[in-house]
């Protein structure tokens, strides 16, 4: 009898990239639900626009590169990029900005480097950062959580995201519907020489749900992140290091200056903290390789985010923190190669 002679090993566990990506999408469900409940169904529009654009951009890029598009479209990685970007955007963002950001994320963030596995930067954060520096006004118009029923109606949403951006009459609407996020309000308040207790006492900053609703979004992201940890799709090193890098300096600064520095709890539950710690910084392609390297990488992201939140020009700093640490990955990898069994300590 004759047999085929494939090389060992002859059995594999059967993990697959599409399965990993699907699990990540599943873990994003809680944060998406919290987002929709607090900020209205605008997220669904953003998700739809981002996913369609991402798939189109991926297909076009693969065609330009002369590759077979079908397996790459099915692996789900581009949908993860699209969903992470959509979750980072305000639900009221004009649709064409969402489409632009997603297309740039896929093309400039991923395919110019050679596609999946080759990109040095987190693609979603490339798209986000380009939008933030190019369209700061649109990018920071967040709806007031639970406060304005109109932002929860589909017709109003459609008018704002698909048509309402144009024309003078819409300006008044925008002002009515949107407001600064908690981090933004705190930054402005501190700049105007208010003290923290004064700012945090205001309803429009913290609100009844803490950090203007973002506390709940962060807790939902934390729940999804814990699911990823439990399924071992993400290992603990990066999330723990990101949170430590952010919260340790926050604790120290708050202890030294309670009137001028946010507490660790506020930092942990405001802005993009949990989404960044568990879903964005953990993108393995653009993260450091070894466990030790991932601790340095995560701590760097947390620390940079704290620095940007405290002294930088933007209210939240995770996108830039992640991109900066992406730059440092080759350096980190070079100095954190684990000791090989049997080599000198």
């Amino acid at each position, binding site marked *: *009898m*004759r*047999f*085929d*002679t*494939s*090389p*060992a*090993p*002859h*059995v*594999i*566990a*059967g*993990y*697959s*990239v599409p*399965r*990993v990506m699907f699990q990540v999408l599943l873990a994003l469900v809680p944060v998406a639900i919290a987002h929709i409940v607090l900020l209205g169904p605008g997220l669904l529009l953003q998700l739809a626009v981002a996913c369609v654009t991402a798939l189109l951009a991926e297909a076009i890029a693969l065609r330009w590169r002369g590759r077979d598009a079908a*397996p790459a479209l099915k*692996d789900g*990685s581009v949908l993860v990029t699209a969903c992470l970007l959509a979750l980072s955007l305000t639900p009221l963002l004009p649709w064409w900005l969402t489409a632009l950001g997603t297309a740039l994320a896929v093309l400039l963030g991923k395919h110019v480097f050679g*596609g*999946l*596995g*080759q990109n040095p930067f987190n693609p979603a954060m490339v798209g986000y950062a380009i939008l933030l520096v190019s369209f700061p006004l649109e990018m920071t118009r967040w709806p007031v959580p639970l406060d304005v029923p109109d932002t929860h109606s589909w017709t109003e949403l459609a008018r704002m995201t698909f048509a309402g951006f144009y024309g003078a009459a819409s300006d008044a609407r925008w002002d009515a519907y949107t407001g600064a996020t908690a981090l933004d309000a705190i930054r402005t308040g501190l700049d105007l020489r208010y003290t923290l207790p004064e700012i945090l006492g205001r309803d429009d900053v913290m609100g009844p749900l803490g950090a203007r609703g973002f506390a709940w979004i962060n807790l939902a992201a934390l729940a999804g992140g814990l699911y990823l940890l439990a399924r071992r799709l993400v*290992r603990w090193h990066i999330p723990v290091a990101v949170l430590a890098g952010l919260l340790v300096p926050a604790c120290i600064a708050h202890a030294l200056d309670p009137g001028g520095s946010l507490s660790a709890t506020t930092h942990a539950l405001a802005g993009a903290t949990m989404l960044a710690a568990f879903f964005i910084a953990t993108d*393995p*392609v653009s*993260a450091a*390789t*070894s*466990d030790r390297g*991932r601790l340095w990488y995560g701590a760097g992201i947390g620390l940079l985010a704290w620095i940007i939140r405290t002294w930088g020009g933007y209210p939240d700093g995770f996108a830039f923190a992640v991109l900066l640490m992406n730059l440092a990955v080759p350096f980190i*990898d070079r100095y954190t*190669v*684990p*000791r*090989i*069994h*049997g*080599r000198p*300590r």
Partner: protein
Amino acid sequence: MAARTRFPAGIALESHKRADWVLPVRHLPLPSRVMLSLDPGTGAAAEPVVSVGDVVARGAVVGRASSPFSANVHASIAGTVIAVEERESATPGGVSLCVIIARTEAETVAPLQRPAPDVSALDAAQLQQALRDAGFAGLGGAGFPTATKLDAARGRSVHTLLLNGAECEPWISCDDALMQTAADDVIVGAGVLRHACGATACIVAIEDDKPAAIAAVTSAIERARDPAMTLAIVPAVYPRGAERQLITAVTGVETPSGGLPVDAGIVCQNVATAAAVARWARHGEPLLSRIVTVTGSGVASPCNVHAPLGTPLAELVTAAGGYQGTPLRLIAGGNMTGLALPSDEVGLGKATNCVFVATGADLAPRLDAFEHPCIRCGDCADVCPAGLLPQQLHRAALADEHGTLRDLGVFDCIDCGLCDYVCPSQIPLAHRFRLARGRLRETDAAARKAEAARERHELRKRRLRDEAAEQQRAFEAVRGQALAADGRASATRGDADNDTAGKAGGITGSGPPGVTH
């Protein structure tokens, strides 16, 4: 001793070791012919010392070890040599020089009875030579000549003989069966091997999923009343039974990268090798047979078989009830590191611990898998028992960056296959590293060859220069004599030949004609 710090994890794989068929060990009627590979599994074949038509007795030498990496090969049945040829074999190369013997004796025979060697009268070197003559090679799977491994202990302070009964690879249970049926042989063989390498202590290591073997070895140790013999139970985690990983798991000592276990004071041998050595010590029988597991979803009745070396694998499958279902792959060894063979017309090798007949159910889902790009998830690094970064190695292997491959430890890879096992992109990492090692060895060999050629060229240049100088000296000497003779002549004839002396002086600087540098 170094402290036990980071011990790479490995994985507790599904063992597929069903206790209900480990025993009894089936004995085959003698095969009608045997195909004896002269390569023990190291790639170094023994020199054949028989030719077609020779009649050989059972136990006669048919291949003689020609290097430290080969071992003597003996006729495992009495018969006539019908071929000495290169053919498919269960060795890493896939092909090796084989001696094929057709049986002429009866179907069953008694154990070979020869005068037993007086082991206690031999010193370590003599004992090693005797084991070399008896054809011993590691029965655990690598087939490394036993004597060479013992010889490496010379001049180093070896304190411990580690007997490997871990048998960590899924599906395989031949060592389990052996320890249950011949635990006393293991202990006796351990004594001989200890004597041959100078170790004072001996540890038998068994994985905790083999309670029957543990009980058998425990009582054998008690019967032996030897305080230097101990049992170590290690967790059933693949690949804890790999030599370097087992040494660390049992003693906490790491074998230096690029070094040998003897550098850590340890000699590691398989329990089956020890039992075979005991049989040799008892009645002089060289290595003629072994226990092999015949298993997989593709055989009707999985079992352990005691068979003469060289038995065609097809006959072993028949002993296990024959093929069933759709056998897709015939593997010599287990499903993680075994070698897929092209045909079942291959002889049982010294290192063949398992014949694994795999159907689609055993192989799924690799058969139709699509290779995705590496997403650097690092799962491979998480499970690597050598502490490597397979994802970085893979990048270096694709780019064929030789320096990076060495730095990242491509030669520290023990080829366990776990990185492939966990890879979500289903990249054949272990195979790519195997190919990379092959390329690196080729480059090294080419570099050595170039260096040898350069040295040869330098030596030749020096020789030519020396020869030229020698010729020059000879010429000078002759010329000196001639001038002296001329001087005497001119002294008698007057100054008539002054012109000739001047011409001779002109030649001196250019050396003898015909010699160029």
